């Protein structure tokens, strides 16, 4: 069971980590490769199960919690990600760990506006055409309001996908959008398929990040772009202390009050602390074969966007 560490004990847990790791590895000798679940040491299989349960539990309140915890700022981070992507109509996007569809919907909105601007530009050039010709061009363009853009949302968690699909129906998204239940470490897609691969606030929950990055490389077309939006490490010492305070004192409480689930949100904050910092993640992405790997800090490193290209 997930140990209900109280917030102040979590700080000491980090210091006691070495001792616990030793006990954990003795325990784990027969059980398989060791990894972490927040500040606990578990086997890879246990970790996958625990994480699945976390998201199964929070799925229905996922969006509400995101708004509460980040005071709505997560929306801005996601907007920035899609603006950075700057997709043109016809782009094929694979959004991994995309559960509730936030990136997918933004992508669709973006290419739809881009497509509208494209059509307006085309119309301005149609000054000398007959009404017949103009209306014909209207017909053919109307059926492609997204200009053949497509987004496939892939997530390992059934509950998250269910929420995403319902949201899509509710908000009126249908064209150019598909949902697949799949594992980021073992994607059910062919090689060289997608123009862009995104993973927003998901890679932290993958057990074998190296495998996920290799899969990302495999499914991207040559020239394709990898984009990762994730919590990262804050460089500013004062902000870092405030952030720690907020994370360990406020977030699990919010989790309990809003989602009735303290433990899942305790896991969330611990997993953020455990996740590799910017430079280390950059190195991992390069190891997978990506070129021109770069990152952009948002809010002093609370969040970072990593980008790489398959050449």
């Amino acid at each position, binding site marked *: 069971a997930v140990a209900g560490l109280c917030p102040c004990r979590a700080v000491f847990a980090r210091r006691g980590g070495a001792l616990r790791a030793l006990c954990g590895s003795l325990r784990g000798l027969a059980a398989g490769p060791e990894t972490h679940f927040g500040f606990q040491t578990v086997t890879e299989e246990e970790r996958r199960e625990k994480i699945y349960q976390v998201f199964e539990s929070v799925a229905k309140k996922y969006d509400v919690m995101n708004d509460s915890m980040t005071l709505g700022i997560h929306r801005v981070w996601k907007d920035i990600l899609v603006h950075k992507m700057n997709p043109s109509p016809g782009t094929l996007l694979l959004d991994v760990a995309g559960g509730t569809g936030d990136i997918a919907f933004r992508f669709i909105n973006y290419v739809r506006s881009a497509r509208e601007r494209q059509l307006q530009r085309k119309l301005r050039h149609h000054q000398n055409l007959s009404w017949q010709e103009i209306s014909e061009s209207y017909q053919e363009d109307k059926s492609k309001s997204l200009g053949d853009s497509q987004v496939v949302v892939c997530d390992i968690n059934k509950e998250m996908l269910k929420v995403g*699909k319902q949201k899509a129906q509710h908000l009126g998204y249908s064209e150019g959008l*598909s949902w*697949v239940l*799949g*594992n980021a470490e073992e*994607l*059910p*897609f*062919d090689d060289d398929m997608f123009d862009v691969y995104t993973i927003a606030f998901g890679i932290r929950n993958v057990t074998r990040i190296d495998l996920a990055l290799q899969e990302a490389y495999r499914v991207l077309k040559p020239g394709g772009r990898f984009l990762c939006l994730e919590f990262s490490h804050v460089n500013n010492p004062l902000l870092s202390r405030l952030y720690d305070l907020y994370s360990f004192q406020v977030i699990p409480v919010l989790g309990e009050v809003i989602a009735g689930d303290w433990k899942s949100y305790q896991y969330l904050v611990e997993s953020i602390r455990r996740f590799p910092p910017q430079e280390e993640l950059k190195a991992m992405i390069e190891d997978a074969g990506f070129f021109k790997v770069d990152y952009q800090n948002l809010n002093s490193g609370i969040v970072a966007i990593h980008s790489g290209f398959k050449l």
Partner: protein
Amino acid sequence: GAAMLRGTAAVLRRAASSGQGPGQAPGQGSGSARLEPSLLRFLVCPLSKRPLRYDEATNELVNEELGIAYPVIDGIPNMIPEAARTTQKKPSAEGSKRP
């Protein structure tokens, strides 16, 4: 191993056949549980990365070579290897290549 696969698949089959989910719009009937054709051009078997055949009758994506089939539930293909069931076609084929 294989027993776990069969067990998981049995549960999924029962769940799939027990009726429409709560998110279905009225009047859509069984059409909404089927796989969107546009997805077929993207999907391959996550284990072998080889093409799949969509079986409309059972609403499954079949990997003939490995003798496994992935279920489609509420229109969403479940491409997790543990969820696949073994088809009886090739008794000598391995059920799973997972290490």
